[in-house]
């Protein structure tokens, strides 16, 4: 049976201000979902909350993935269970090679969410942490590193995975030899997100405006890339303002968010209607005040 992500009557606050007012949504593996809506309607918030961003507080409701609530889990444990978020604005991590990072990430994701290996979210784990080099400068340090390296996915296997995924997305190898997103153009960052998704093979992936700020050619590259990754094992949620990227995808469901609520659901046609007529008619239908989104 396909895995499901069920969002139940989800209320979310930031600094005591409620911004999601009871979201209900079910995402299934193998389906393409679209969330549309004006700026400030809570789309990005929703995807961040699902990934477990610590800035947001879930005040009521639940997020259930594969039959279990994930609300108490940190972002990394949610990722290990198969959730993914392609960021609207991916962060730069200078000095960290994209390739090495991805190897560690894939190793962790493949291990899955094994509770016994999860460390407390606390910096001070052992001793006073100052780590001065002790008398034995023999092998112990090197051995620690050796163990760490050996527990990673073998280099040959990883290289092969990278080669395939890069090929699939028509990307060059030099791309992953650079530091993660460091000095990347907007389009390169978006493609790097899609590459990460391709390598990590999540069960449910949220793509937060994968098309924003991109020119037509770049949207095609990203759209075709995403399309090539969709499988019965991967469900995606595309958050977008634009209809264009949807041309590359077999859309199953379209949901419209406004003012922290899902106000309308439909099929592929709904996206077209919005492209033609804007959001005004939906707002009226839902009986919402004009422009309230901008406050958020």
């Amino acid at each position, binding site marked *: 049976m396909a895995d499901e992500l069920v969002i139940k009557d989800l209320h979310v606050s930031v600094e005591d201000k409620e911004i999601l007012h009871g979201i209900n949504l079910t995402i299934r593996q193998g389906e393409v979902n679209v969330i549309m809506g004006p700026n400030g309607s809570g789309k990005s918030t929703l995807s961040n909350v699902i*990934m*477990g*961003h*610590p*800035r947001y507080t879930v005040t009521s409701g639940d997020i259930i993935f594969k039959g279990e609530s994930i609300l108490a889990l*940190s*972002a*990394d444990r*949610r*990722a*290990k269970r198969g959730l*993914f*978020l392609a*960021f609207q604005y*991916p*962060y730069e*991590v*200078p*000095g*960290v090679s994209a390739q090495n*990072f*991805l190897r*560690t*990430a*894939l190793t*962790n*994701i493949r291990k899955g969410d094994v509770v016994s290996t*999860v*460390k407390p*979210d*606390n*910096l*001070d*784990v*052992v*001793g*006073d*942490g*100052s*780590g*001065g*080099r*002790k*008398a*034995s*400068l*023999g*092998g112990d*340090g*090197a051995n*620690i*590193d*050796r163990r760490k*390296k050996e527990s990673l996915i073998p*280099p040959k296997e990883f290289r092969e995975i990278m080669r395939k995924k890069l090929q699939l997305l028509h990307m060059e190898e030099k791309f992953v030899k650079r*530091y*993660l997103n460091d000095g990347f153009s907007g389009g390169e960052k978006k493609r790097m997100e899609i590459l*990460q998704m391709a390598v*990590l093979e999540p069960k449910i992936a949220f793509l937060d405006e994968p098309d924003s700020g991109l020119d037509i050619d770049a949207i095609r590259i990203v759209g075709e890339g995403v399309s090539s990754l969709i499988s019965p094992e991967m469900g995606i949620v595309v958050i977008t303002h634009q209809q264009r990227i949807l041309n590359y995808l077999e859309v199953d469901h379209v949901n419209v968010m406004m003012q922290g609520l899902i106000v309308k659901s439909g099929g592929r046609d709904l996206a077209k209607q919005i492209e033609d007529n804007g959001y005004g008619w939906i707002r009226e239908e839902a009986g919402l005040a004009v422009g309230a989104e901008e406050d958020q």
Partner: protein
Amino acid sequence: MSSPVAEGLLTLEAVEKLSAAKNEPEWLLAKRREAWTLYESLPTPDWTRGIRGWWHSAVKQLDVNTLQPFTPAGNALPELDSFNVAEEGDEVKMVTEVLAGIIVQYNSEVVRVELSPEAQAAGVIFTSLDEAVQKHPELVQQYFMTSNVKAEENKFTALHAALWSGGAFLYVPDKVEISAPFRVVFYADTPQTALFSHVIVVTGANSKVKVIEEQLSNDEVGGQIMDANIVETFVGNYSTLEYYNPQEWGHNVNNFSTKRALLSTYSVNRWIVALFGSDETRLDLESITQGEGARAETIGAIFPTGDQHHDLKTTTRHSVPHTTGDALFKAALRDRGQYGFQGKIRVDKNGKFTESTLGDHVLFLSEESKADALPSLDVDANDVRCAHGQTIGMVDDNQIFYLQTRGLSRDEAISTIVSGFFEQVTDRVPLASVRERLRLSIARKMA
């Protein structure tokens, strides 16, 4: 060397007994006595109070009067020959660095001196400083604490000049290029040891060498160890010296270190330093360009964790026209770690057409850590291009979240961000074994 004699606390008598035991020439004894007088008259500096007196943390006081002026070598020297690691492709390997020579000082005594046949044939002198006094007195008299670091600079340089022992002396003749590094290791394992480790490097014209200086101690013995250390380099015309100092003293060491390079015409001196160890370190790191076309490069990685305190004063001084400098420091602070940085580009009146940069970047990993950073330009010449840049910030929660969404735990995410932060420094370390070792040490300090 023969057995220790200068027993008891730090006194003039101890100075004289030490010199006598080493059969030192009269000029050296006179120099030691003179330094002792300076030591007694100079004030105890209050460096460890923070540069501008901002810090209120009680810094552990070092009681110099409980320290032994000479501590013989013990018999528990750790394995030193295969600590290096290098990454080849994706395999991590233990690498035994091919060395041009090695000197090991254990407490106050040099216990091992080796020089490769190639270096020997090239006329390189690589001995303990004690031995150099006997075999090459004219060279020691010329270079030892004369035109470079001077006894009168502060209380610890004076004490050092009065009580130094062991040490390393490297003299490279003209036109000798050796790619394998010379390695100098200082090791201490006895409580209440006062160490005065000294390194002198003299490179002849058109020569090219590398030196790795290391400090290690057994910190399970308790007590305090003081290392008042001095490094003097004299970089000859058109020569290049790469000087590596991954300092990893144990937690029982208070370290007062002065390192200075004098650069001749078209020479290059590269300081590559890491402050990772010790309880407290005060490093005074300087490069002075004295010949036209000289280039002074400095890179530093600083990482106080636990209750460590790392103070760094660094100057690139341009005293003649047409010289260049490039200094970059990166410091991460964890737990209650403290970092003081006073960085300066100094251009003397005669230093026209200087081009020099200074960068200092600080990353806080905890709320309790403290840093005080003060970069400055002090320029007395026209037609110069000097710049300094500084950044200070906490590790970014958004970056952490981003990496966590890819399956890295919070600890792994922070560790990844920190190693990336240091990478701009580690990536510039030319010698692969030291580069890998720094990466490993950073990872260990994050563990």
